């Protein structure tokens, strides 16, 4: 995406392509809860996100570039989210909207994922419960900046060793486990992408 030769035609072409991608990010709205309503409000007449290029709210992952995870993600919904993420063609970006998607929010319970960034790479986080539509547009513009530079979190290359180092890993935190219970789905046979090995439990008391 950043261009492998230094020829000015290809770099200019790449800049043009990145500019085009940035200004036509088609969202895949993954609205589950209250943040979904604010996302809907952002796409409506008052805070029109269509003027930023996000015109087509296609609910088809195969035809979109930007996954907007808005709302709390529960145990049952996480495999669905990952399946949708896999189905999106690259280059793809992800916005984690709201406190629940970014970190579990007000709900630290047995059934909610404490932040989707443990499992899928996130480009922009929106704090708020729910974030205002202006915050949504801010995150959209942040992702547009990234796209113009040709960067995406889903594209960052890491070696296997780096991936287990929290400072270098594209996933911001290691998954929140206390001990494994039930079917262990994190091993490579269960995933479509190569994954890191089981990391140490997240910081903090998980009792």
């Amino acid at each position, binding site marked *: *995406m*950043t*261009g*492998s030769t230094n020829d000015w035609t290809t770099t200019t072409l790449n800049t043009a392509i990145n500019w085009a991608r940035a200004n036509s990010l088609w969202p895949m709205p993954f609205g589950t809860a209250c943040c979904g309503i604010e996302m809907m409000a952002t796409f409506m007449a008052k805070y029109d996100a269509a003027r930023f290029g996000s015109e087509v709210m296609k609910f088809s992952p195969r035809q979109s570039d930007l996954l907007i995870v808005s709302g709390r993600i529960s*145990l*049952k919904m*996480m*495999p669905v989210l*990952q399946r949708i*993420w*896999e189905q999106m063609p690259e280059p793809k970006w992800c916005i984690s909207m709201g406190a629940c998607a970014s970190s579990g929010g007000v709900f*630290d*319970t*047995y*059934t*909610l*994922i*404490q932040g989707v960034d*443990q*499992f*899928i*790479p996130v480009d922009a986080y929106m704090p708020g419960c729910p974030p205002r539509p202006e915050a949504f547009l801010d995150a959209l513009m942040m992702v547009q900046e990234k796209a113009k530079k040709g960067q995406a*979190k*889903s*594209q*960052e*290359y*890491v*070696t*296997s060793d780096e*991936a287990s180092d929290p400072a270098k*890993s*594209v*996933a911001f935190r290691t*998954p*929140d*486990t*206390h*001990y*494994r*219970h*039930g*079917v*262990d*789905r*994190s091993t490579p046979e*269960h*995933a*479509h*992408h*190569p*994954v*890191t090995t089981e990391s140490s439990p*997240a910081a903090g008391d*998980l*009792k």
Partner: protein
Amino acid sequence: MITYNPENHLKVIAQVEARMGERLLGREEKSHYHQFKVKGQDAKDLIRFLREEPSLAFAMFIDLTAVDYLRYPIAQPERFAVVYTLLSPELGVKAQVKAFVPDGDPRLPSITDLFAGANWTEREVWDLYGIEFMGHPDLKRILMPDDYEGHPLRKDYPLKGRGERGNFPVYHASTQRPKGEG
């Protein structure tokens, strides 16, 4: 419009007491309804009576839930209680039936043949408490994933779970693409 008729409470109480007799463990008066306490095995009988008795006609289903009294300060007859709430459109009163279910054998008859609304609510009680409803057409988990182990709303289940919420594959960037190429 169906309106609340407090005078009909006495009628309900009298008929329930006459019907249940010794099987009625107790009765409590709440702000706008009465709560009848029975053993789990007698609950269906009482609810069928409330529904089919022409002078009572508790034909409307309101709610079905359960409570785990493991850490309750006042001793209760059993650990679990299934609470049924019904409304009688004719009389204009609500009634609640609290059926106590023991820990060792948490089963009681299902009322899905009386009220269709009991179908999902009983599944939810099974899912979250582990109380089995005998005669339910399709008793399986409804809110938790199908392969989940444990019954979360019991008092001895931790709030933050037992690690299920970290048990998903991690989708980093591809670790197979060499550095430097686009």
